[in-house]
């Protein structure tokens, strides 16, 4: 393949790359080397990787090429280079959680979600940057591919950046308060938080056990469906993983939205920037123009969902970190330390009440979903924030902004465990992506993906970041 052809490989969706690998139009080694070269050239400025696993990647790719040449086809991820958030266990490979606390940690087994992809022949490019233990402050080193002066969102920041900037074909992220969907929204890729239990949490560094989700971050809805096909399913190593039937999620993609009932969440349509508003309106119009029935719905307990999310996370995160916090306090960053210390002051009674309250929020959402197939909102309220502007703000302004602009859109659906996906809706005049969130019934990722795929087809391709 020519040099320009190899550069094009970096923009391929998994589905495209996979078909060319299968026909041996391109080899996995060629694709992998193209990714490694690009990472080496560009990641110094973007900061998406914590560890690049060159040798492992080359070994995986060579094996994939040998197997494909021998007529062995493991599936759509065979020979495809992927990145993993650095809170995903990888056997023998550094897994830091983005923290000094685990700076030298090498697990002795693979996380189930990654093991499933690896068994399909996926190539491991490396481990991706994240906020400390997915709970720390904003990442200053990792930048938005559309504008290096802006934040990428978090906590799966490296995953989103690498996918958008052509430094992996797809990535795994985790989401407890919005950590897949927020960076996907700010960087311009597809981020899917599946239903709680749909994907095994085994081998993920936990943040909040009862609300941790694992999911795909990809360049297209089809790729998210392909990845979920592999990652989903019961895992006896994770007692909370679901035995719910796993359909072929790609089968739902061509369903279209004619007759689909879409509820616009009223509480999440206020406080938007003008450009996010316009892009969201345009997205709704596209859905309506292709036959979806749209109306406005109200979920008054949404903010309660955010409070529950905060309370549960404080306590469950402390459970995991308590010993290290006591013994290695200075190895934690200030932001995560304050969150964990707050957990010490939350009475057991309040944690218990927070858990009980989750059913109330889900009941309201399910009631609304009796008359609707999906609910929609903008992914976040504004485009990505400038690092410089953020640093000028006082703490109170920063905190308020994080909630109003990002977390209020995402936290409630970690509390309810419903599937939720963010998809780019365009590029605003400041050159940054805008997005829409699509929320479904528990275990109905197929419907979420169906609506997202229909919208994506109508929207057309996004312009690439100026790299």
């Amino acid at each position: 393949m020519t040099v320009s052809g190899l550069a094009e490989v970096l923009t391929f969706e998994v589905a495209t790359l996979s078909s060319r690998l299968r026909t041996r139009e391109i080899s996995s080694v060629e694709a992998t080397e193209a990714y490694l070269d690009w990472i080496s050239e560009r990641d110094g400025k973007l900061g998406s990787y914590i560890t690049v696993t060159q040798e492992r990647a080359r070994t995986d790719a060579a094996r994939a090429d040998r197997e494909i040449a021998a007529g062995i086809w493991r599936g759509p991820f065979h020979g495809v280079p992927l990145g993993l958030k650095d809170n995903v266990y990888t056997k023998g490979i550094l897994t830091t959680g983005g923290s000094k606390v685990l700076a030298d940690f090498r697990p002795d087994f693979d996380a189930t979600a990654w093991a499933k992809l690896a068994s399909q022949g996926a190539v491991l490019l490396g481990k991706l940057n994240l906020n400390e233990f997915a709970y720390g402050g904003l990442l200053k080193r990792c930048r938005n591919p559309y504008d290096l002066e802006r934040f990428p969102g978090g906590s799966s920041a490296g995953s989103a950046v690498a996918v958008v900037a052509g430094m992996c074909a797809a990535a795994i992220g985790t989401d407890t308060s919005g950590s897949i969907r927020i960076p996907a929204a700010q960087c311009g890729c597809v981020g899917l938080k599946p239903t709680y239990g749909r994907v095994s949490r085994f081998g993920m560094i936990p943040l909040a056990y009862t609300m941790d989700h694992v999911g795909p971050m990809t360049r297209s809805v089809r790729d998210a469906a392909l990845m979920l096909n592999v990652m989903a399913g019961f895992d006896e190593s994770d007692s909370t993983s679901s035995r719910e039937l796993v359909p072929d999620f790609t089968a739902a993609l061509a369903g279209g939205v004619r007759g689909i009932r879409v509820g616009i969440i009223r509480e999440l349509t206020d406080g938007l920037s003008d450009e996010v508003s316009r892009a969201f309106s345009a997205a709704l119009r596209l859905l309506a123009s292709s036959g979806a029935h749209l109306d406005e719905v109200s979920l008054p307990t949404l903010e309660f969902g955010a409070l529950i999310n905060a309370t549960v996370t404080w306590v469950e995160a402390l459970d995991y970190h308590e010993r290290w916090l006591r013994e290695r306090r200075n190895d934690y960053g200030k932001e995560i330390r304050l969150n964990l210390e707050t957990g010490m002051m939350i009475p057991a009674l309040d944690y218990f009440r927070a858990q009980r309250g989750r059913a109330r929020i889900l009941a309201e959402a399910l009631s609304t979903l009796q008359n609707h197939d999906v609910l929609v909102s903008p992914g976040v309220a504004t485009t990505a924030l400038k690092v410089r502007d953020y640093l000028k703000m006082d703490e109170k302004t920063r905190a308020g902004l994080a909630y109003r602009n990002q977390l209020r859109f995402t936290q409630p659906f970690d509390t309810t465990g419903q599937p939720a996906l963010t998809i780019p809706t365009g590029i605003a005049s400041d050159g940054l992506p805008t997005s829409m969130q699509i929320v479904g019934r528990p275990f109905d990722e197929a419907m979420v993906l169906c609506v997202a795929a229909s919208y994506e087809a109508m929207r057309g391709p996004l312009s690439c970041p100026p790299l």
Partner: protein
Amino acid sequence: MPASPCSIAHPAWVEEIFYNKATGGGCKFLVMGTTGGRNVAARGRQPHAGIGRRELLRASLLGGSALVAGIVRVAPAIAGDVEGGPPRAPRGKGPKLSGEVVERVAGAFFGYQMPAADCDTIARGAEATIRTWHLIALSNLAPIDPPFDFSLVCAEAERLTRPRG
């Protein structure tokens, strides 16, 4: 095929459909009108009996997320010291935390020496949260069972007894 929204230069109809102020408390998006949509949710409903949305919003600002850097430091505002804020639980009867109490609890319950600089911040944040939960509990959580499932206990017990690998 409609125009792609990838460029933010949207066609004129975008302006037409977004936020129809004339409808007031009714349909927010004209697109609803064109599709015969209706708002199925009860308007003006409170999120939880007796608890105002503003109060919940403020308490939610306390954080619990990867992105909430230093969020507990906004606690005084959240705790109700904001113009137009909701009625607070009576100070004398509701929970009250000081930096000193925080330091003692951390030491006594967790064997943890809380950094002095953090104590007051943590106290304000935690007090606001506890007070909000106090109000919510007074209101009504009674009919809801906790999501702790015996089958999960059994599954976890099975997992623990299984040989690893």
